[in-house]
């Protein structure tokens, strides 16, 4: 199975990117080369393997013999309280278009 020019167009659309015809063809060939290397993954038997989204998950497992070490190893949420000062002007300093403290975008409602 390999990617076609249509696939590239669809992925570009999803990615909010544009490629002209030569760039699109080059990209298609490069991605197809890459996915040949990816093919070897298919042969791996991964039944009963829990997907690892994050290394901290693996670390917890590793340190399970040492409860004091595993204590600090988890993804946490902080309390839902305001902790930052309002810095609207500083934060908008690098915005391409701002008016009265609002980010400007092209008209989206006719």
């Amino acid at each position, binding site marked *: 199975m390999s*990617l076609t020019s249509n*696939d*590239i167009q669809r*992925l*570009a659309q*999803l*990615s*909010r*990117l*544009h*490629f002209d015809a030569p*760039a699109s063809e080059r*990209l298609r060939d*490069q*991605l197809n*080369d*890459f996915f040949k*290397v*990816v093919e*070897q*993954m*298919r042969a*791996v038997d*991964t039944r009963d*393997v*829990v*997907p*690892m*989204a*994050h*290394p*901290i998950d*693996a*670390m917890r497992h*590793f*340190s399970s013999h040492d409860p004091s*070490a595993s*204590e*600090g*190893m988890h*993804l*946490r*949420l*902080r309390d839902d309280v305001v*902790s930052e000062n309002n*810095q609207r002007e*500083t*934060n*908008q*300093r*690098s*915005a*391409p*278009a701002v008016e009265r403290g609002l*980010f400007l*975008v*092209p*008209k*989206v409602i006719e």
Partner: protein
Amino acid sequence: MSDQSLHHLSLVQLRAHLASQQISATEVAHHFLQRAQADTHHAFLAFHEEATLAQAAAAQQRLDAGDSSPLLGLPIAHKDIFVTRDFPTTAGSRILENYRSPFDATVVQRLADAGMVTIGKLSCDEFAMGSANENIAVPSAKPEAVTNPWDVSRIPGGSSGGSAAAVAARLVPAATGTDTGGSIRQPAAFCGITGIKPTYGRASRYGMVAFASSLDQAGPMARSAEDCALLLSALCGPDPDRDSTSLNVATEDFSRLLQAPQGDQPLATAGKDGGALKIGMPKEFFGDGLAADVRAALDAALKQLEQLGAHVVPIQLPRTELSIPVYYIIAPAEASSNLSRFDGVKFGHRAKDFTDLADMYQKTRSEGFGSEVKRRIMIGSYVLSHGYYDAYYLQAQKIRRMIADDFQTAFEHCDVIAGPVAPTVAWKLGDKSNNPLANYLADIFTLPASLAGLPGMSLPVGLGEAGLPVGMQLIGNYLTEAQLLNVAHQFQLHTPHHLKTPGGVA
């Protein structure tokens, strides 16, 4: 103290000169600013002399007051992936043209609190995506590839190529880097310096421009393990309110083991329960793909470590080759999501002409991102899309678990793992720039530890083909950075490789 030789001193030596008042922090800052501004390797992207000198003056005041902090008054430069208030931040990308961060990255802040003086910002591959520092699209009129101080026709490695080149050319004694799939270790190896990527979560990612959030990790690059230990102690630490992935483990003194038993066989007692240090040699790291010159330098280094009392034992990391597709699916998947924030609305570049909002997004991103970044976004969009998610992304995450488990099996037989950082020495500029796959394949030895989240470091172990540096990679189990640094330090106490200076660097 003659000014001429300041840049050949280590951080520890420079600090001693500051303590004995042979030189002031301001004089040190001037010296390195001058060298960095005369840089011919294109390592630096930005300076702000006034800010640098103000930091130096503040450091001198602390020195005058008797403050003995080990990094106080010492110069450093930051990879341009860390946001900084005093300097522009581009992540090597046009899309962050003219961006000024309203805050400092936690790592930058921690090193500033330790009294370090920022000399400038360093070039890197765009959004840290690359292994040669050739993927640069910085807003300067003429973006130039960073060159390797050992041979200017060669790449410095990447993505922290500016950091490695600047330290190797003695433009700064230390730099920050980031490592997602090898971006500290590989350029450190190619430029003959020492660098360490700590355990994932040791250093805060707050203010590090995100590439692949489950892999990105900051670390120091300097000339010796001793210097790296000081830097790592300052830059690591929990950041509970700002990075939910930062480990809540206490700040550590990573230099604490360096004083360990001196004498002829310091590693004879450096292993588990005071026994000999066991160094695992994964057979998959020493196969046909490894260049003969790199192999020879590593063999000599392993022999040296045995002379220091270590035992080398054979181990296996059977899924080493699979780490390439696994990494190049997971990292682009995370990147395609992270980089969706660059849309021309809140910061950075915006296209000039567009018809509507969707067109503005598309034109802005197409103009702003370079080709490697676009390629990875496209791979990410594909592997996350409906119908392909299970076959690619989920399967990659499952093999990632198996790779992490393989390491735990290996660590039942050894204390640290040693191997090459890269299959060859630094290649010629342009050699692989039109062949993304060739770049990906060269990352084979650094990707496994990244996927598992393990600490890894690179230290110089000699010269290979064309007199170019060879690095040895040391990988430790989670949170064993102090041990890794001690092994490297003992090696450096008995060998001269880390002291070699590229020809032409006076």
